[in-house]
């Protein structure tokens, strides 16, 4: 596969390390009263869609950016590649 890195352009997927569903960005609040359940779902349950999937890739052999790749899990077509840091901020993560 080829991942079109937002900064570096097309790079072979073998330069990257895969983590999983981009929902791993949405880490629950540790002080929430349902934190135990929230962290269980965050850590263990997945949509695992057959179709569009937002997922985290780390450019291990490249610029060390974490990327959010939107990819179809049935065709492998890639629709969008973003810097995970931007996505995280857009999803309201800060410090």
């Amino acid at each position, binding site marked *: 596969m080829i991942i079109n890195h937002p900064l570096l352009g097309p790079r072979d997927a073998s330069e990257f390390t895969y983590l999983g569903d981009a929902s791993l960005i949405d880490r629950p609040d540790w*002080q929430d009263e349902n934190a135990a359940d929230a962290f269980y779902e965050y*850590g263990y349950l997945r949509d695992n869609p057959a179709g569009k999937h937002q997922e985290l890739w780390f450019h291990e052999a490249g610029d060390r950016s974490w990327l959010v790749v939107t990819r179809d899990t049935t065709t492998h077509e890639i629709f969008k590649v973003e810097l995970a840091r931007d996505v995280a901020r857009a999803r309201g993560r800060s*410090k």
Partner: protein
Amino acid sequence: MTQNNRLSGGQIDRNTTVNFRFDNRSYTAHPGDTLASALLANDVRLIGRSFKYHRPRGLLTAGSEEPNGIVELRTGARKEPNTRATTIEMFDGLEANSQNRWPSLKFDALAVNDLFSNFLSAGFYYKTFMWPAAFWEKVYEPIIRRAAGLGSLSMEADPDEYDKGFRHCDLLIIGAGPSGLMAALTAGRAGADVILADEDFKLGGRLNSETFSVGDQNASDWAAQAVAELSAMPNVRLMTRTTVIGAFDHGIYGAVERTGDHLATLPVGKPRQILWRIYTKKALLCAGATERPIAFENNDRPGIIMASALRTYANRFAVTASQRVAIFTNNDDGHRTAADLHAKGVHISAVIDVREDAPTNYDYEVLSGAQVIDTKGRLGLTFVEVALPDGSTRTLDCGALGVSGGWNPNVHLTCHQRGRPVWNEDLDAFVPGSNLPVGLSVAGAANGVMSTHGALQSGANSAAEALELTNALPELPAAEDAPVSQKPFWYVEGCKRAWLDQQNDVTVKDVKLSYQEGFRSVEHLKRYTTLGMATDQGKTSNISALAIMAEVAGKSIPETGTTIFRPPYTPVPIATFAGRMKGQEFHPTRLTPSHYWAKERGAVFVEVGNWLRAQWFPLPGETHWRESVDREVRQTRASVGVCDCTTLGKIDVQGTDAAAFLNRVYANGFAKLAVGKTRYGLMLREDGMVMDDGTAARLAEDHFVVTTTTANAVSVYRHMEFVRQCLFPDMDVQLISTTEAWAQYAVAGPNSRKLLQKIVDPEFDISNETFPFMACGNVTVCGGLRARLFRISFSGELAFEIAVPSRYGDAMMRHLMAQGEEFDVTPYGTEALGVMRIEKGHAAGSELNGTTTALNLGMGKMVSKKKDSIGSTLSEREALNEPDVLKLVGIKPVSPEEKITAGGHLMNTDGPVDAAHDQGYVTSAVYSPILNSNIGLGLLKNGSDRMGEKMRLVSPLTNLTVDVEIVSAHFVDPEGERLRA
């Protein structure tokens, strides 16, 4: 032996004669031959034996689709089993042998299977060999396995080298026949960046096999001229002897270039083959088509060959399979072969054409509406029996029969991403479907365009479309544009032992049986009969079998199914995929800066990840590793020892939020750590298990140096970047690895300070008062070299770690040894390190096994609940906090000399010894020269409350049972007085 089947003309170098051997007989040939054409030239028709019935086999084709003519090429360590004679380029001294026969090719004992073929019908083995149960391994299977397989491996390491390479292009053209060449000319002249790859050693495809003309030249000359023009273009790369084996995601193609297979011996340093990963914007498949056979009784005899192959042998290689040839065809193309052979003086016994209206305007006999109903000749064809329309039969005397059943487009690569071909009524064949790999288009015969003119035209058009060219297309040379004229005809009515898959011996009868037993989908058919599973991947058999299945089912072929293809297009040596990554180069080797010093000292090394670390340093006279290790431990604890700990991961953490960041990634607190101090850090995974541990030294308010275990350096860095970029993107923190920049040495033992005081420059006071336990800081050594000093201890002794720039590591180690002489300093390796950390009760790799929590390791209290940190919440799950969870304990044999085995399980002293009564297990075990006893660490149910308890350590795997006592994990200096001294 003379080449008495050699004809005139051809594209071989007759001025040079080379010698080769087949089954230990010498023959001659010419450069430009393949082994197949050379064997035919020398009148050798019998080349191998089939898989199941060991039927005599000759050549069926002239290309890479060959199922029958497979041999063991070369000898010794370079022996290549199952090599297609049709793709072996002739070289002087070539040596090949037939395979899957015993005692000889002509007299093969297992040919007896053929007599019992009725009992060996498709899938028969699923229905028997079941009683008694034990007999399968003992009796039946050994017999089957002995008969299994075709060629044999040399069992020696492959001595050749292989490379991998990476190329990028705008347009990859796969196949250099008429459509491929025309596409390349079109794209090349337009200035596009083009790669043209073809599996053959001579570009031109069918153009080299035909006698018709292209423009005002004969076909092969036109091809040669096109190739000449292309090779002069800087923007076009020609890759001959290069098979594109697969279409992978996003326009990546795998290609195998055979750079050395046509040479008797490889030049030094040159690879035998190169695996290319070709990154393309667009790709164009011009792979041509494969002629398909017709099934008839005994259609598998040596001498029965595809008609188009006979034409290739005659026109390109100037060879005929026999001086007397008959043709069996259902289409006009078969007649071309007759005409070409006739023109070269070969006797045409007759053309048997199943069509009543067969063209007859030729000067040899054509039997219209006739069919071949049987053949004769044990080791090679002698006669064919023909049924004439009037019901009479006729026997034709011939040594070769050319068979033409029409053409199948080579759609293989269009299926590699699950695309399915579609049925074309006009061609009675599958053509590429709509669901092609992204960026791939298809031209020429591969796309069902069967005439030469059509191929040239679609090549030009497809290239232009792929590249969105606007300029005018090049003018096409005139070429034949004959329409396809054929009558669908798959097999001769009533035939039984009519071969479809000639290598695996799958016949029409087997397909019918498969249907009868309910194996009716193509997938079931293939799996049940093994059709198409042979080394030729069913290139000549799949479609015919499908047609027969359709007929039995009374369905159309497309209703019955389609056959799709997976990579590789043709089989590829496993070594080609491995490339240079083998032997010592399998993984990179990482060496510490003082590696060569350690080698001088005679150190024994051990692999730790990709690192090589000194395991121990034997002295003259030490005969057993234990002697060395015990000495290193004693000397270190008695005075001072030095250990190379460069391999520990080091991560530079800077930024105004550096402390806050570490507070998140470590379970314990870091906010309040003072500058100039170091702290042990416990890192959890989000699931609450311990991920890694190390130390974090605060060099400044906004600057930490973090260490990780050697094994986890990479994953911890990745994890920290995840936390930084994905979880807390607005923290001001910057990370970078400095593992390699610093050579770091643990200096441990009561005299470690004294030794370092001779190294560290005097202006730096490292006394216990100013540089106490867990202190850290920048210093200079040896008269001004910048260095870092940490007062941390893994051994439990008074200890420091000193780091200098890597290029000085070797010198620093030598310096430490020299300056340490007065203290009887010793270098120590990973074994002594392990002994001392176990004596001290420090958890390490075997305890941090990914399934242990902080609580398991006796560090539950370190997980701060006053802050958010990775893993803290999920570490609170009930099952991880039950009263009897495993706890880290020390283990001592009741009698000290008794051995303790890591991996042994702990059982109560009485009661059964089985899994149900398992109490825990031993994680680490060593001999402690300090305690003069074997000791170990282990994880024991509710272990912290079981100190002093006697238990049984059992290791049935190593036949060991030992009475042990559960003790504190801190065997040495539990109060930690030494390391604070």
